[in-house]
């Protein structure tokens, strides 16, 4: 990730790349269920269609918060690509999610409120694990900068394997995939916080989801150090793992999700922190 042209291209093209990932994901999911599935460019067709819809908004703050959510998420992604401070990246991502939660609470729809509540619970589940992974990375490299992880010769995966496993456990929560998709559960709360968005304002929230894919897969890519091929392999394996998990599991409730996060993922990340601190690996 030293090449600044690649970095800038990646930042600018992040929504397009994320849309492609989402398209491939829908195709892969369909093939796993023995369906034909939509074309790979389907997310972009959705994007073009949403532009033609009549512009309806609940109130201006609601629409504005949705657009801010998209911008702040893009900003977090840019800092991650440029190799900035890990804590800052986590904070910016939290800010983006907090904005969409505010938007969810600003309407009077009960499903929107439920979705916002559940998004807040999801943050509670994944955020501590991410922070501990960041501290582990600090113990390993002596700096909070992600660029130190990108530049490391030995892949970080071999230095802190438990952190990678903990990351794999919280990725379904972050990406809102089954079994931890309680925050957007389409059968229960009809999409949660994005419920009241429509037309061109929904586009911001819809595209932010694509950015989230890039964000999560870059976190996985980070674990490969400066070995790009290993990074791409890790991303591909994680992609298949997440889709297989999404297709094969049912939704758990929020208590089970929290219990899993606090009793399995968090101790694993903490164990990794101890191992890195005392140089056991």
């Amino acid at each position, binding site marked *: 990730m030293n090449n600044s042209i690649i970095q800038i291209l990646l930042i600018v093209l992040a929504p397009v790349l994320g849309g492609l990932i989402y398209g491939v994901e*829908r195709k892969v999911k369909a093939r796993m269920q023995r369906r034909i599935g939509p074309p790979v460019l389907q997310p972009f067709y959705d994007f073009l269609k949403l532009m033609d819809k009549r512009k309806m908004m609940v109130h201006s703050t609601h629409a504005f918060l949705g657009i801010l959510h998209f911008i702040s998420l893009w900003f977090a992604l840019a800092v991650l690509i440029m190799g900035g401070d890990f804590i800052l990246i986590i904070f910016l991502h939290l800010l983006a999610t907090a904005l969409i939660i505010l938007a969810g609470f600003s309407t009077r729809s009960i499903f929107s409120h439920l979705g916002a509540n559940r998004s807040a619970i999801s943050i509670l589940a994944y955020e501590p694990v991410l922070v501990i992974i960041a501290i582990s990375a600090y113990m390993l490299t002596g700096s909070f900068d992600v660029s130190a992880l990108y530049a490391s010769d030995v892949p970080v995966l071999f230095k802190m394997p438990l952190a990678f496993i903990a990351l794999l456990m919280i990725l379904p929560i972050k990406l809102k995939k089954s079994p931890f998709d309680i925050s957007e559960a*389409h059968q229960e709360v009809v999409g949660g916080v994005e419920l009241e968005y429509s037309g061109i304002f929904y586009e911001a929230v819809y595209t932010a989801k694509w950015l989230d894919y890039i964000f999560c897969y870059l976190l996985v890519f980070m674990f490969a150090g400066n070995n790009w091929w290993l990074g791409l392999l890790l991303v591909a394996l994680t992609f298949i793992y997440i889709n297989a998990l999404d297709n094969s599991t049912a939704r758990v409730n929020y208590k089970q999700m929290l219990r899993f996060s606090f009793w399995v993922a968090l101790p694993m990340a903490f164990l990794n922190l101890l191992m890195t601190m005392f140089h056991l690996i």
Partner: protein
Amino acid sequence: MALNKFRTKSPWILHYNAGSCNGCDIEILACLAPKYDIERFGMINTGNPKQSDIMLVTGPVTKRSRERLVDIYSQMPEPKVVIACGSCGCSGGVFRGMYNCEGGIDQYIPVDVYVPGCGCRPEQIIAGVVEALAILEKKTKDMEGSVKLHNDPIEQDGQTNRREVAAVI
């Protein structure tokens, strides 16, 4: 624009049961299931009126459900298309003339495509949706059409009244 031809490639579906016996609903869900796989045309069952284009309504409109039917219809942003699925949705079916039902969906909201049959078959629903896509494209074009000024503003009670000026072609 060249991009306009992609317009009809992602119709999102809203499914509402206005007192149906669930026969037609099962057929609609069968469309989404792997055998007929309606998602290959880009259709998703959103369940959210604010983000959907095509409304699939089943059942004769019972008196309890008619307010919700109109409410949901008015929450959908234009352009929108309504498909009445099944005999009951089209005309009231065997429930026509009963004290607790209305005779079909078109007594309350404008219906664009009728899909008959008691349970309408999934193939018929897909054919109906494809027909609805042509109507959806026409409606999108109409929305972009120019507005012609028919009348001049009139002086009324010392004020200029422009209320009657504009009329869509």
